[in-house]
């Protein structure tokens, strides 16, 4: 069995440092370092927050001495994105420079990290395990981050204006850091291949899968179904009652989290998700939940205040929750990236989940900041997939779409008089059918069906957020109506029919044509 997997709390910090050094020195075992960066690793169980920082920092520095593999890159970028600890950020910056090749996608992360830490640029020491700097002549996170920008060189050209702004007053960095900024600017401007267009968003292959993913086979939710949760009003409800029958968006947080870029921002963004769902008329179909990592402290009243202070809508469909009998079942179901000292969190990642109507995890967004729109889109996909499981309903939808289109075409070309009716029939070579009576009442019926088609396209557009189908069909319907207003406009009927057909097709196929955002939405299936 691997040392990293078995290492636990029995290991003292000096022993841990020795283990890390040994792993870093051995090319065959170096891969285990990445495994040790997982927050839920037993190694961090019952360690204090400061110890966890020291340990993770030492692993990052070990990776810096060896080489950061793709699997560890995510942990490095996570520090840049949400880290507020000077030592960890400096170590992460150091580690990134050992990645085999610079990549333009790293530059915005580095710049964000500078923005996050520049007001708290405390001196750090990498000399020995657990050492704190007693002099400011050494390094600091901003200094390390600037060195990383210099390492990126021309690959950071996309952020050159922002880097240059770091040396101009006001708002620039400290004078003593100017040399580091100048070095970075010089390296970025230096000779070398500039990254191609769009390179800012392309992280190394495989990394996107780790940021956001969809499970191919969704794990069963039975083990967690009986888990009792208590909501912000003190009402008890089981996991099954809460998450069965509709998709849900679930975030994790705790009120004592002191990193404003993690829990507080996550819950604030949940409020944004709720607004998007309401705007798309999906707030009754997709529920939201925020579950605390710290159920012993986060009593209902604290949950309610925390949510309300961040604009979260709280009701029966949108709840803030705590697991009354402990977090174990929930932790195991979601495989939460968190660890504790007693009941207090010592480290956690950002994690957001989309659950399907059976309470199974359908998608996950981890570590790096997530986008509200993206999470809602994923939940809508889950909702639609749920609808598609009900095949007759889908067939009905397709049939209604086709009928609506046909009705529109029929209205467009409906003959105005019995003579025209006979002419149409003979034109289509069905002269033998002249006995079919001319029925003027059919026209309003067809017009009504056309309007129903338009209404259905509008509803579908609202739920998917893509109204282009409705607009096209609407324009088509208008053209058809215009064609009926008098002589000279008959040709508009042709355009109307074509637009209606195109709009109906677009409306029906909208989800398949959805734009795939940069990296974060790559899925693994």
């Amino acid at each position: 069995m691997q040392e990293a997997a078995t290492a636990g709390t029995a290991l003292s910090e000096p022993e841990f440092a020795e283990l890390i050094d040994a792993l870093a020195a051995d090319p065959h075992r170096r891969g285990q370092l990445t495994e040790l960066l997982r927050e839920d690793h037993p190694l961090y169980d019952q360690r204090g927050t400061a110890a966890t920082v020291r340990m993770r920092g030492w692993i990052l520095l070990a990776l810096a001495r060896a080489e950061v593999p793709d699997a560890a890159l995510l942990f490095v970028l996570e520090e840049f994105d949400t880290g507020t600890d000077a030592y960890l950020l400096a170590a992460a910056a150091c580690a990134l420079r050992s990645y085999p090749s610079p990549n333009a996608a790293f530059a915005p992360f580095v710049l964000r990290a500078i923005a996050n830490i520049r007001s708290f640029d405390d001196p750090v020491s990498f000399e020995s395990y657990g050492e704190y700097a007693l002099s400011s002549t050494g390094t600091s996170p901003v200094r390390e981050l600037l060195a990383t920008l210099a390492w990126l060189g021309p690959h950071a050209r996309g952020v050159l204006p922002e880097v240059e702004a770091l040396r101009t007053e006001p708002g620039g960095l400290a004078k003593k850091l100017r040399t580091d900024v100048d070095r970075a600017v010089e390296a970025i401007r230096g000779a070398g291949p500039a990254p191609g267009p769009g390179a800012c968003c392309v992280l190394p292959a495989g990394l996107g899968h780790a940021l956001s993913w969809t499970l191919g086979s969704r794990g069963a939710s039975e083990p967690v179904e009986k888990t009792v949760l208590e909501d912000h009003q003190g009402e008890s409800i089981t996991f099954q009652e809460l998450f069965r029958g509709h998709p849900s968006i679930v975030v994790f947080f705790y009120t004592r989290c002191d990193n404003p870029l993690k829990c507080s921002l996550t819950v604030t963004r949940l409020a944004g998700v709720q607004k998007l769902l309401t705007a798309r008329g999906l707030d009754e179909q997709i529920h939201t939940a925020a579950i605390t990592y710290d159920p012993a402290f986060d009593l209902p009243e604290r949950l309610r205040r925390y949510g309300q202070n961040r604009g979260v809508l709280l009701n029966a469909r949108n709840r803030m929750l705590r697991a009354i009998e402990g977090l174990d079942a929930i932790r195991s179901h979601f495989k939460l990236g968190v660890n504790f000292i007693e009941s207090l969190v010592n480290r956690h990642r950002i994690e957001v989940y989309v659950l399907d109507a059976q309470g199974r995890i359908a998608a996950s967004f981890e570590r790096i900041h997530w986008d509200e729109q993206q999470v809602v889109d994923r939940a809508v996909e889950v909702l639609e997939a749920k609808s598609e499981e009900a095949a007759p309903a889908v067939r009905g939808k397709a049939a209604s779409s086709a009928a609506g289109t046909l009705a529109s075409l029929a209205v467009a070309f409906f003959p105005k008089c019995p003579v025209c009716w006979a002419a149409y029939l003979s034109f289509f070579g069905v002269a033998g059918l002249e006995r079919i009576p001319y029925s003027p009442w059919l026209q309003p019926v067809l017009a009504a069906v056309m309007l129903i088609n338009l209404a259905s396209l509008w509803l579908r557009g609202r739920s998917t957020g893509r109204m282009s189908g409705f607009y096209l069909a609407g324009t088509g319907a208008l053209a058809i109506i215009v064609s009926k207003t008098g002589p000279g406009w008959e040709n508009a009927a042709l355009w109307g029919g074509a637009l209606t057909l195109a709009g109906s097709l677009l409306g029906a196929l909208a989800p398949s044509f959805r734009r795939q955002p940069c990296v974060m939405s790559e899925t693994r299936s």
Partner: protein
Amino acid sequence: MAQKKKAAKSSKSARKAKSPAKKSARGGMAVAAGARKPTEERIAALMQVPLAVCEKDEDLQTVLNILRNQDEPIELRLAALQVIQAASFSVVTFEPCRGAYIATLREISDDPDPELRQRVLGTLAREKDGFVQKKLLEGLQNPEKALVSPEKALQLLSYDVHADAYPVAREILSKSPNADARREAIRLLAADANTAPVFEKILRDKGETTEIRQMSAAALNSVRPDKLQEYARAIVLDDSEDDELQATSLTAITQFGDQETVANDEALLAHVGELKNKATAKVKQGARRFLTKYGR
């Protein structure tokens, strides 16, 4: 052309206007650094330039040198600390100085002067500095290494819920004879749900001081409000209980009790009705508020 001249003239005069201030800041620093000047004069000079301290590296170094130099008079060193602390409130302006400031504070965190040491430790603790938290915890576990008294150490550690001080605070609460340290331990542990049974035990124990029991009641309200209501009811109903504690319990029930449960608790309502007439002024006042809320 005339406008340009005017602008040049006004900028010249602005420069002129600025220079006396800068000159006085520079002069102030020179006086503060002058070891042969009287201490009062040096302190006065330092106090004139708190916000300018970060503008020039030499000025910052002057102040930090005074702060770390044990041969300087302690009043002057304390003034230097005050000056640089005042400058640090302006987070953005202070950005360039922060590294040197934090490093210097860490360096002098074990200074022989107790007042300076305590203030330095307090400043670093408010920054949630890992270095100082480690030192404070070491001092609590090993009194020979202690930089401040246990109660002060606990107070400083309580600035950060993630300072890992719960186990040592629990030990002090259950074993230490030092009342001040126990009081600080309760304050620190008031956010720790795992200590709720200890708070219950203290609250039940009539041998504990009233202050410690009151603090335990407040801590219990923070982590197990349901339990506090149980104990508060029992204390109110117990005529042999301490008056202060009865008053605290009445307030807890009035402010945080479940209205429906309390309104239907005839025994409690009747007993509070009696307290209104019999008990001490504090209890009477609490009883009146309670009865006003519950319509009696």
